[in-house]
């Protein structure tokens, strides 16, 4: 029992389970899943489907944060990626053909990779602080996206493209399979190869890992590239969901929610040890909370207030000062109890 409570995923999972239980009690429909036309429907399925973009972005953010970095440009990369994909589909003569959609998706991912390589270059080759290096692209990226779409919101009607966000495969949403694939790829490369250990080494002590022969530069560089590629795919899913490329709204605030998901999952912002599973749980907590807030009848624009309190509770619970205060109180109580019991023994004698 003790080892279960001590596990680092215990508190995130407990939070997620209690959210789901509270929801299921408050509205029985929350847990129900119905099959209709060979598709599953229900609030839980919606959470799985809607969480795909945030999940992809958060996975990339986890790896970047593990290297002691941060990637603020993820939302801007999403906007650029969506703009590239939709502009290509819009310009192609047959918007409904699978071929042009595949070309558009490939081009969007490639452009995202280039943006990630740029971020990685600024951080690892030029040695600029990650916050500032990615701030440059965060500022300029949306401008680039607006230029690509010509300042308009490009809309398309393309069945293969819409399938990405709203299609179903084997009863489940296609977007869910993209999430699973991304978790598998990131999880396997980071946890079944030495890459994860090297990433943590770079995050814990860059200088020591360099002296130990770890190629920190390449690892940091690839972290930013991976983050941008995942954000690019997230941008495609987002664009497919609204059937449009909205350079201003795509991925707005997503960097903040992604950082929150990573922190909720127990990965420290100081770099080093990271948990892919924790991030997945963190994303699900955020998405369930969002669904709960909507159910409570609170306008979604007001939901940041709830997330502000979540952030504050999480950071205060994690803070060293609170830990030392709690430990101190614990000691006081224990020593008082100990002295009480000795007194009991003395009186008995």
């Amino acid at each position, binding site marked *: 029992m003790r080892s279960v409570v001590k596990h680092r995923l215990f508190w995130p999972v407990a939070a997620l389970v209690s959210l789901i239980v509270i929801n299921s009690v408050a509205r029985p429909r929350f847990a129900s899943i119905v099959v209709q036309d060979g598709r599953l429907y229900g609030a839980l399925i919606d959470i799985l489907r809607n969480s795909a973009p945030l999940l992809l972005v958060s996975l990339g953010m986890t790896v970047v944060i593990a290297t002691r970095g941060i990637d603020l440009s993820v939302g801007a990369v999403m906007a650029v990626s969506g703009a590239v994909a939709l502009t290509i589909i819009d310009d192609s003569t047959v918007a409904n053909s699978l071929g042009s959609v595949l070309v558009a998706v490939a081009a969007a991912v490639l452009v995202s990779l280039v943006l990630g390589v740029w971020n990685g270059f600024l951080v690892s080759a030029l040695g600029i602080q990650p916050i500032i290096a990615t701030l440059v692209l965060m500022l300029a990226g949306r401008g680039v996206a607006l230029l690509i779409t010509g300042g308009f919101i490009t809309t398309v009607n393309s069945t293969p493209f819409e399938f990405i966000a709203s299609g179903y495969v084997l009863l489940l949403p296609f977007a869910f399979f993209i999430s699973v694939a991304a978790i598998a790829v990131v999880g396997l490369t980071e946890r079944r190869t030495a890459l994860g250990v090297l990433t943590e080494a770079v995050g814990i002590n860059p200088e020591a890992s360099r002296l130990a022969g770890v190629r920190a530069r390449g690892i940091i560089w690839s972290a930013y590239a991976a983050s941008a590629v995942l954000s690019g795919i997230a941008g495609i899913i987002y664009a497919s969901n609204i059937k449009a490329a909205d350079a201003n709204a795509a991925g707005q605030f997503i960097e903040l929610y992604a950082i929150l998901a990573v922190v909720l999952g127990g990965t420290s912002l100081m770099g080093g040890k990271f948990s892919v599973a924790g991030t997945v749980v963190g994303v699900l907590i955020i998405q369930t909370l969002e669904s709960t807030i909507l159910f409570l009848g609170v306008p979604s624009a007001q939901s*940041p207030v709830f997330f502000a309190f979540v952030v504050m509770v999480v950071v205060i619970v994690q803070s060293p000062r609170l830990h030392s205060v709690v430990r101190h109180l614990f000691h006081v109580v224990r020593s008082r109890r100990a002295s009480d019991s000795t007194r009991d023994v003395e009186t008995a004698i």
Partner: protein
Amino acid sequence: MTTLERVGSTRESTGGYYHTFLSRHASILPTFAAVAILILLFIGAEIFLRGNFISPGNISALLLDNAYLLILAVGMTFVIVTAGIDLSVGSVMAFTGIWLAKMLEAGTSPAIAIPASLIGGALVGLLIGTLVQFFDVQPFIASLAGLFLARGLAFVVSLSSIKVETESVLWLQSTRIRVGAWYITPTGILALLVVAAGAYAMQYTRFGRTTYAVGGNRQAALMGLKVARTTVAVYVISGVCGGLAGLVLTAYSGAGYPRNGVGTELDVIAAVVIGGTLLTGGRGYVVGSLVGVYVYGTIKSIISFMGAEQSWTQIVIGALLLLFIGVQRAIVARSDRRT
């Protein structure tokens, strides 16, 4: 021969003076670079737009249009000099602006509503400062919580915009004090007063020196400086500046709007960095941020003069930010090597 020698010696002495100046004032060089960029921008725009750009009306409008940004930049300078960052400023501006509009709509006197909205901004800053100082939360995350809180509260106050019809608030914007073709509004005067107060506090008070010390070295507490109080105070100052900016923006647009200032924190950080404040803390000038805001505003108005897409503003600012970070790194590396 003698003349040659004399030329040689004077060159050496001016060179020596130059080096002394460089090593003593290395931290002011980025601000000089910003001034140079600003002058180049003005000259370039004047030539490119065939003498239509530099006019008293345009220069006056620059201050009027960017007054809220200037006020936010002053608060941000304090925070960044302590090696912190405040992402909440845009949201705080939106929250205090819409709350002010709501109170005025309900018939509250401006004499109560304006101080109340400033206190609202200060409380958000106090919260961030407390998290940073007493719970060891990174400034980035603490101010992120502030951003979420203030943005959500703005929408709690009202989901749509609220028109302001109170004479005394609109007066701040509509009054034009004219000197020839030049003019200044009370909002512009307010912004310049904030800059003057900020610059004075930074350079000539114990608080200002502590601010620099905190950013330069966290161990400054050992020297008997009040680190905790100063760290919390800079976030409160930034929050109050957010409140003032909310007032100015409400007067400027004649309404409170909960969606105001989305992404403004980035513009403010960019302006402060371009103005020569180092994000690693310990170096920076409030007057530099004034220059930075002017660079930002000038680029914006040049682009609108040229009739180009406003999205170019973001791209140019991004590029300029990168350039300045490069310049600063070079200067810091040089001055570090010297000491």
